[in-house]
């Protein structure tokens, strides 16, 4: 659908839902990829001015079937004190915008990890962010899994890490093209045989990391990218946050290039999170590094007509060794103690 037509359909949708006269201005595509598109706009609804975002699912029905009901998730999360944009309305294909969508507040801030970790403007943010991240995670994990608006997550959740690993191994098998990946296979065997007993069954964000949060000069302004949310072990989110790739070069600070693990764990417990099991977090950190390596293999395999759409995607296959090295380094201690 053309941008002008989309803007018209959006205006009609907003006046129908609000029962007011609506004027939309500054409608612009902000970001997007294969699975979603994001547009920003200002809307005058009756007498009120709003700065809003239109978040649309991909057009392909196959991808839509997998997409999480982010509208419901954000609504529940906000009620429970998680820092997320306020959501207003959602609609499906019948609303005339071409696919499933929802509308939420436009949040100020920046999401680029390198700015967060390096720019002078964000020095104060770096100082308070570990505690803020811990608080957000503790609140997410306190959301009751029995909330009926989250029932749709049941079918999207795997039974545990062993099933998760098996799923990614299937992906490797499907696209490997015969290229052997002995490191990934070896680590997968260890992961399959060493899964920790879950600390609790919680709502897990699934992609909680630097790069997926928005921030300004004062601190965190929003937790983004909920499309991998599922029910599982809350320790998974803590481990994923420590994965090396999210340190963006500040490698001596394991938690997103910001601080050490102990500071995160203490703050998480202080903010009401369940008691941290460092061995389980470590397991999930190893799994996370492994999973990121598999994702790099997947990305590197994504070529159009024999060439890559951009240089970043072309180079990502050569990042696999980073994650393999990290996973093997973390494993060393465990292998030694197992004898």
């Amino acid at each position, binding site marked *: 659908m053309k941008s002008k037509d989309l803007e018209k359909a959006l205006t009609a949708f907003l006046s129908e839902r609000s029962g007011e006269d609506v004027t939309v201005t500054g409608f612009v595509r902000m970001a997007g990829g294969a699975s979603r598109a994001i547009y920003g706009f200002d809307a005058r609804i009756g007498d009120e001015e709003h700065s809003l975002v239109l978040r649309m699912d991909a057009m392909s029905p196959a991808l839509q079937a997998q997409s999480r009901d982010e509208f419901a998730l954000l609504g529940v999360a906000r009620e429970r004190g998680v820092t997320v944009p306020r959501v207003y309305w959602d609609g499906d294909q019948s609303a005339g915008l071409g696919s499933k969508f929802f509308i939420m507040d436009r949040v100020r801030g920046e999401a680029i990890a390198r700015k967060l970790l390096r720019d002078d403007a964000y020095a104060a943010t770096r100082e308070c962010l570990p505690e803020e991240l811990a608080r957000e995670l503790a609140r997410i994990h306190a959301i009751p899994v029995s909330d009926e608006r989250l029932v749709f997550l049941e079918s999207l959740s795997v039974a545990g890490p062993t099933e998760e690993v098996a799923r990614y191994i299937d992906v490797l098998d499907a696209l490997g093209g*015969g290229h052997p990946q*002995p*490191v990934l296979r070896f680590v997968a065997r260890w992961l399959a045989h060493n899964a920790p007993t879950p600390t609790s069954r919680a709502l897990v964000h699934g992609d909680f990391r630097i790069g997926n949060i928005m921030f300004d000069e004062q601190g965190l302004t929003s937790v983004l990218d909920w499309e991998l949310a599922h029910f599982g072990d809350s320790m998974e989110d803590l481990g994923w946050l420590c994965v090396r790739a999210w340190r963006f070069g500040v490698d001596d600070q394991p938690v997103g290039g910001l601080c050490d693990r102990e500071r995160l764990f203490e703050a998480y417990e202080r903010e009401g999170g369940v008691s941290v099991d460092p061995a389980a977090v470590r397991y999930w950190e190893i799994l996370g590094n492994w999973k990121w390596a598999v994702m790099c293999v997947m990305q590197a395999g994504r070529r159009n007509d024999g060439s890559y759409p951009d*240089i970043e995607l072309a*180079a990502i296959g*050569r990042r696999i060794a980073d994650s393999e090295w990290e996973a*093997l380094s973390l494993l060393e201690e465990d*292998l030694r103690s197992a004898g």
Partner: protein
Amino acid sequence: MLDKPDAKDLLEALAAFLANDVVPELHGRKRFHALVAANVARILARESELGPSVQEREIVRLSRLLGREPDGAAASAEERMALETALGRELVSRIDAGEADEGPWRDEVYAYLRETVADKLRIDNPRML
């Protein structure tokens, strides 16, 4: 015989041009992609220098791990690549069968994997070592 400079020197010159002359002229996404491009040129420079010895070591190490005599006779580049892949697949099938789950051979496999990844990093990202 080709004239000098060789591939390594040319790629280093390309990397320096991208990093020093191109990157400062760009902003946003293009600037980031130019930085990635400079890094790609550095990877290729290291690969042209170290690639052959890394592959030779890999074949020897992997053959020993699998209890084979290292076959130094694989002459052409294609033959060496095919040998490396065949040995790698054999290791994967033994790992998948559970042979490296425990015991002394697991430790040998682990040590092999560490050395192999270290060699990859010498080309892809030596700062990690």
